[in-house]
């Protein structure tokens, strides 16, 4: 089952859908390493292998705050290809341990630079020519994976989509699934849930040091909503208590936007994508205890 990916389930959020509106969530944690990044890793790595760019001597390198690294780690292990993942310091212990379980080498980038720092360090290393960096932020296979996978599955599973809501990280989900959804439902809106990462990053030297993934085209969104840490954690907990879904924090951020959009509608269908489950985030303390304490504790960690 090296890269076969069955369609993931879509569920209606029975307790949380506002009257007249159906809010559906696509549960991506049913994929082999528990996140939607299995799609991206498989697409990028299969393509590179079919082009002869991955051979027995290849050393893979990838910047990732966790899920992409873990998904690539599984395939790299199966293929017998060494993988180095550059991740920001402050990533949760579970993500680090999972990468180690798959035999991955981990290098840490400075925490104050967040994921931007991981991209910077990996790009500097890749410049030496010793590594093959598939670069999820710049690789069209990332978008393609979400077009032919996530997006095509959605339009097969649902008869109607008025709004697609997904988190913004590399932009791959929004660009790929967004294109597939628009193809079948031309009037559908594509809405980004922006995680509050920019607030937490202290290590940028200037605004110009910001990073826009090359695969991301802001012109292909209809709306972009910022979700702060507190509502992110609140909605992650709400999924647990109202729907019994033990989801990761990026699901909480996506839900917050999906409900915001749904409450503005009188009828229709909103579909959102839940990237991963909560297991990898237990040590961050976001699921239990007073909310204020959870927000405080999570504010200096890398949740995305």
């Amino acid at each position, binding site marked *: 089952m090296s890269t076969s990916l069955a369609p993931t389930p879509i569920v209606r959020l029975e307790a949380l859908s506002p009257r007249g509106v159906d809010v559906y969530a696509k549960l991506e944690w049913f994929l082999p390493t528990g996140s939607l*990044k299995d799609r991206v890793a498989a697409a990028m790595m299969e393509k590179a292998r079919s082009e002869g760019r991955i051979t027995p001597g290849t050393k893979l390198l990838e*910047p*990732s*705050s966790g*899920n*992409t690294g873990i998904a690539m780690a599984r395939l790299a292990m199966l293929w017998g290809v060494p993988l180095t993942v550059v991740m920001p310091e402050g990533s949760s212990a579970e993500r680090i341990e999972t990468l180690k379980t798959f035999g991955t080498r981990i290098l840490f980038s400075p925490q104050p630079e*967040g*994921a*931007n720092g*991981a*991209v910077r360090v990996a790009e500097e290393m890749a410049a030496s020519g010793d590594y093959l960096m598939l670069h*999820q*932020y710049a690789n069209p296979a990332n978008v393609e994976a979400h077009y032919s996978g996530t997006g095509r599955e959605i339009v097969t599973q649902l008869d109607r989509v008025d709004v697609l809501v997904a*988190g*913004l*990280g*590399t932009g*791959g989900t929004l660009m790929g699934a967004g294109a597939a959804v628009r193809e079948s439902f031309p009037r559908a809106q594509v809405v*980004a849930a*922006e*995680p509050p*990462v*920019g*607030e937490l*990053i*202290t290590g*940028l*030297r*200037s*605004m*110009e*040091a*910001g*990073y*826009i*993934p090359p695969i991301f085209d*802001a012109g292909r*969104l*209809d*709306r*972009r*909503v*910022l*979700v*702060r840490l507190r509502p992110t954690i609140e909605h992650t907990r709400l999924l647990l208590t109202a729907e019994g879904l033990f989801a990761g924090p990026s699901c909480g951020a996506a839900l917050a936007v999906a409900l915001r959009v749904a409450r503005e509608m009188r009828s229709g269908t909103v579909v959102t994508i839940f990237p991963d489950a909560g297991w990898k985030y237990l040590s961050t303390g976001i699921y239990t205890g007073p909310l204020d304490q959870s927000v405080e504790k999570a504010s200096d960690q890398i949740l*995305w």
Partner: protein
Amino acid sequence: MMHTIRLPTILRVHAGGDSSVTARGSTVGEAFSDLGKRYPALASQLLEPDGSVPVFVNVFLNDEDIRYLEGLDTPISQPSEITVLPSVAGG
């Protein structure tokens, strides 16, 4: 009408270290112009010489990206929160 403008860490140096500042205006652009009177260095980070918002800067009015509203011409009808954030990666 007074609005709160929340600043990312890297811009606070231009606002005396404060994490937020206040400004008046009936559009986002007017609020930025008002800000520029007191914090010219800050305004130069938020606006290009041609008056547009730099590509690496994201501006949210009550959490909605103004790019998908009316940009700097987006009207503000009540005291609001404007959040400025750098573009960052995730994933």
